[in-house]
């Protein structure tokens, strides 16, 4: 049984530690990494009014049931295989139509960007959902920091490619690197964050460490993991799933119960954590974030721009 979430509760009170232990031992093994690395201890963050008050899923649920094909196609593969990815040091290339392009060390990239906890609903295109307490910073603040140029209309992001550390990349299930994109106004929206943590601690590898996108009103596959490149571009980029099957996966991929996917009805979803006999729940337009984001799509036909 999950406990109702309370704001004054410390995550360390409720977080099962076993999962972290392994990771810490690994880190302790690489002493240099510990000395040089940023805060491996609990992250320093503020809470946010943008968080939902719904009960988050357990750390175990969030870290053992993942779609991250770079580590295998089964939901349990990432938890089993992702430990081989080295996330420290990590750098992110900022490219394209920006004032300050360059390759930034992660810590450098994050300086001056306050971390917040954002408890968001997360809706997978496969019609299951979770509630996840991310820690991250607003992507918009990063974009302000690096300065976007007038011609920039879209963002294009890439996941790291390291077949030697990412076992799934040794076969061509997808055309690596995984690519995702956003319209600039979507990227600047305060709900859009780059997450670096989960449950108050560093992001586990299977959830996209060390830095991933989180866009809570879009299907989960838009929230690209282990990002190494952010490029500002003039043209709408082609994201990985759209390239594979444009009839099934669009660029926008906003959660929309009225636009059916050929494989899964999007009208309802299964909230993870309810057990074998849980009732499905209705899927909300824009995953329940319509008040904040619907205006971004005024005048657009969302059945065409799916």
């Amino acid at each position, binding site marked *: 049984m999950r406990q109702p979430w309370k704001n004054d509760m410390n995550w360390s009170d409720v977080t099962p530690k076993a999962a972290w232990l392994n990771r810490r031992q690994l880190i302790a093994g690489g002493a240099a990494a510990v000395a040089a690395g940023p805060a491996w201890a609990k992250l320093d963050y503020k809470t946010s009014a943008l968080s939902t008050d719904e009960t988050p899923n357990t750390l*175990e*649920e969030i870290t*053992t*049931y993942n779609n991250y*094909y770079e580590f295998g*196609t*089964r*939901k*349990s593969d990432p*938890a089993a295989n992702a430990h081989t990815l080295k996330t420290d040091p990590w750098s992110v290339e900022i490219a394209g139509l920006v004032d300050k392009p360059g390759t930034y060390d992660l810590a450098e990239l994050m300086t001056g960007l306050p971390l917040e906890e954002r408890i968001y609903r997360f809706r997978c295109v*496969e019609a*299951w959902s979770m509630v996840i307490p991310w820690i991250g910073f607003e992507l918009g603040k990063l974009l302000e920091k690096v300065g976007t140029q007038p011609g920039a209309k879209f963002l294009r992001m890439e996941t790291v490619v390291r077949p030697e550390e990412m076992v799934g990349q040794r*076969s061509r*299930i*997808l055309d690596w690197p995984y690519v995702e994109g956003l319209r600039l106004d979507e990227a600047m929206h305060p709900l859009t964050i780059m997450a670096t943590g989960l449950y108050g601690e560093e992001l586990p590898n299977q959830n996209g460490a060390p830095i991933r996108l989180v866009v809570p009103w879009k299907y989960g596959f838009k929230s690209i993991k282990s990002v190494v490149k952010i490029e500002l571009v003039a043209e709408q980029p082609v994201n990985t*799933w759209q390239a*594979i*099957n444009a009839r099934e996966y669009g660029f926008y991929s906003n959660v929309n119960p009225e636009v*059916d996917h*050929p*494989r*899964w*009805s999007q009208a*309802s979803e*299964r909230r*993870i*954590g309810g*057990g*074998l*006999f*849980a*009732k*499905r729940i209705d899927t909300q337009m824009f995953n329940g974030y319509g008040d904040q984001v619907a205006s971004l799509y005024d005048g657009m036909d969302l059945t065409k721009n799916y």
Partner: protein
Amino acid sequence: MTLAQSINGWLRRVPAWTLYVVFALWGGWYFYLALTRSTGIWTNQVQGLEHVVGLLALKILIAILAITPIRTYTGINLVKFRRALGVSAFFLVLYHFLVWWFLDVQTLGRVVADIIKRPYITIGMGALVLLLPLAVTSNNLSIRKLGPLAWRRLHWLTYPAVLLAAVHFVWLRKGWQLEPLTYLAIIVALLLLRVKWRRLALALPGLSRG
């Protein structure tokens, strides 16, 4: 005595009905896991159960296709288990279907809509429907009534059913994934093993005559 002969001698002492016991317990064990586990594939218990049961059914169907080649190439005779395997596979597919209906999509409206709208469901349903007459006639009375020839001909439905099941598996995964494609390849190979010899030999002289 050859190895195959001693294996056959040992198999003769195993009654076929033990397979019903094995697969009933197996299916029950999966249900128990779905009730009590909550990590890995069991984080989503309903989908986990759907998957393991579907996969077990598919493996049994493959085993059925393998019985004849195994006898041809190794001399090991498993033919007496074929009917029990077939009926077990059918019940597991039914279990898979009922989990999908009552625990996954839950309402009749969604069941109908999904069968019509979602190709991978339509195909899975096709496989289930093809297996249905086989399961219904898998008793001695039916065999006697139909006569062995008609009964055997009816059981050719197994081949399209297994193929549909494999296509269902390939289709339901996002993109082209290795695991379902491997199952499909094994099934196609097993089917080719049967078709080739007799049919082609009969068909080819026919062609040259025409």
